[in-house]
């Protein structure tokens, strides 16, 4: 059975920017092929998951205020079923990082992510979470949350307007709709790869730090 291109109510496919990645995702999934029953079930799951995204409130700075506006009367994300904001990571579906992540916060963020139940999604909201933003050169700011956890959707802006947040959430919906759960979870595999690469990188960095330390120690007597 063929997986269809994800559709969003009252917003055409052409109105979204960067449609290539979604088309590519769909093509990749179709290449493997699935049987009809599993495919139908997957469709139902994807529909329900994409329409019932419960956020985990993780606001560290300015973006959190705009997120509150998103929930308030003018923008009202409850219309899309996004409103059941959970304060316990166990019950939430996606974590929306709003604001700078610092070195001190990073372990807590990783832990919260690990505490979330599958399926879980990550949105990097605002310049600081995407790349460190205006604080990129700082001594204790993480240069993008994707150094710690795998990110599904990036929302640029400082902070992004609520409209932009809606756009980002719709992108997440599309991404969820173009995924497979039964018969080989494609997201799980991607994530496994992410954390494997991360572990390798860390090992590498530790080795380099060790070398640097040794070099310094061997240099020190020469200077004296």
């Amino acid at each position, binding site marked *: 059975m063929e997986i269809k291109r994800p559709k969003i109510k009252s917003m055409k496919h052409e109105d979204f920017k960067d449609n290539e990645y979604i088309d590519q995702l769909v093509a990749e999934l179709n290449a493997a092929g699935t049987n009809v029953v599993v495919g139908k079930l997957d469709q139902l799951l994807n529909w329900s998951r994409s329409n019932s995204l419960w956020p985990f*409130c*993780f*606001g*560290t*700075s*300015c973006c*959190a*205020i*705009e997120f*509150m*506006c998103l929930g*308030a*009367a*003018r923008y009202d994300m409850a219309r899309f079923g996004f409103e059941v904001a959970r*304060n316990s990571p166990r019950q939430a579906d996606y974590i929306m990082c709003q*604001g*700078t992540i*610092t*070195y*001190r*916060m*990073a*372990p*807590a963020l*990783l*832990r*919260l992510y690990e505490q979330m139940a599958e399926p879980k999604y990550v949105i990097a909201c605002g310049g600081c979470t995407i790349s460190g933003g*205006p*604080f990129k*050169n*700082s*001594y*204790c*700011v*993480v240069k993008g949350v994707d*150094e*710690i956890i795998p990110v599904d959707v990036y929302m640029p802006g*400082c*902070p992004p*307007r609520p409209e932009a947040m809606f756009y980002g959430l719709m992108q997440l919906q599309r991404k969820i709709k173009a995924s497979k759960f039964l018969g080989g979870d494609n997201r799980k595999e991607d994530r496994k790869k992410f954390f494997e690469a991360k572990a390798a990188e860390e090992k590498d*960095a530790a080795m*380099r*730090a060790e070398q*640097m*330390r040794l070099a310094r120690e061997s240099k020190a007597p020469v200077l004296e």
Partner: protein
Amino acid sequence: MADIQEKIGALCPEAQFDTSGELLLVIVPDEKWHALAKALKEELHYDYLTALVGMDWKDSLGCMYYLTNTDTQEMLHVKVSTTDRENPRLHTVSDVWAVANYQEREVYDFFGIVFINHPDMRRFFLRNDWVGYPLRKDYDDSPELNPLRLNPEENEDDTFSLIEEADGTLKRIDKKVFGPEEYVINVGPQHPSTHGVMRYRTSIDGELVKKVDVVSGYIHRGIEKLCEGMSYQSTLLYPERLDYMAAHMNRHAVCLCLEKALGIEVPHRAELIRMMMDELMRLSSHLLSYGCLTMDQGATTAFFYGFRERELIYEIFDKTCGARMSMSYSTIGGVVKDVHPDFIKDVRHLCAVMPDKLKEYHKLFTGNVIAVGRMKGVGILSKEDAINYAITGPSGRASGVHCDVRKCHPYSLYNEVEFDEVLLESGDSMDRYMVRMKEMEQSVKILEQCCDMLEKEGIEGEYCAKVPKMIKLPAGHWYQQVEASRGAFGVYIESDGDPKPFQKPYRMHFQSPCFNLVGVVDLTCKDNLFADLISITASIDYVIPDIDR
């Protein structure tokens, strides 16, 4: 000024004076500093430690203390330094001004200066396994020394103090913050009611809070260090991201400080627009704090009502500045561009609807018997404590401290408009909440007068003075305060008068009001219920990025 100089000379003959700056500078050797500090507070009534700035002058390390006399509003500043870079030590003044407790921990964190007799010398912002002191000029920032660590911090409970014995020898005493018998519950860093990433480690007995240990730094971005690597114009980017609910005011403060240093005359119209933006921001901020306070106490609907009116203010910002938040509107010499043609109309509309809406808020929440029960007489902060902990802004005024910078040290055009400083007496949560509600009325009053003044000036006019492209400051230091949404926001700029074409600030320090606010959490929450911890911190109303910088 000469009078005070004489008095201080009598108290401490070793003190040297420098009157060349905007304020009197007293230079004191460290051994005499503690005695002089006591005398300054008790005899000369300098009871309000406005700012404490850690400094690295390359040959020496030290601190600048800005002091204010709360009766006469006179200010002076004191410089204390040490030339020992290996083991820098100064005497603490945290027993004289309680606010110095956290401030000195910050200086220890940034410069490695250990304060003798300080009760709790821990790092304040950075992890306890951090290597080096980032704001020192010789700091090694290679990522190998301080990589991104993903393991939780160890030995969080460990702390020490350096005690001076009677014979002058120093003794290090290692301590624990919490004893093994205490039941410590962790609030934050990710908690719905800490309004950001603040962490309290609270020791509780049943539902009773026994002690609150503030662990900050979860959003410490090193802004002061970043400023040292940029031109003066670029640094304007950061103050807005400190307290994002006082974006205009904070930026206003930096602009005023730089204009003072450069001697630039700002056009009347620009100052007027800045002032209006400040007041709009204050309205927006107080509405948010109303919303958060009500939501933290479970009245979710009131939160939505507050946000409904905030959208009107956002719209005004959006039209004139082109952004809803992080507006980047003030600039050195004025504002970036003239206001939108609809500006006056929109502001007038806002002023017209606000009184009715305020009535609605009161109806929904203020008179509610549960709300009164939750806030009245809870978390009382006395006037003495408020001054001792340098609490300013609405929280300070709720305790009856006359601390509105708009009245004490008028800046901008606040002399030309009529408004009252809201002062209440009891200093409980209810008063802190009521001060904000009443200040909104005053802001509306100021805005109405400003609208008249701006209408007189016409639709267009000069909105920015001529400013050189490359800003170069002479050697010296300046301090400027404004009244931000949550209290007195101060900016300290020091320039070394570097003749190079691209001059960078030698040191920039932001004295944020929220930093002091968080200092009273332990004091006000002690022996209250756990649920009160939430309502008290909500009524104190701080913004975490402002604390952490």
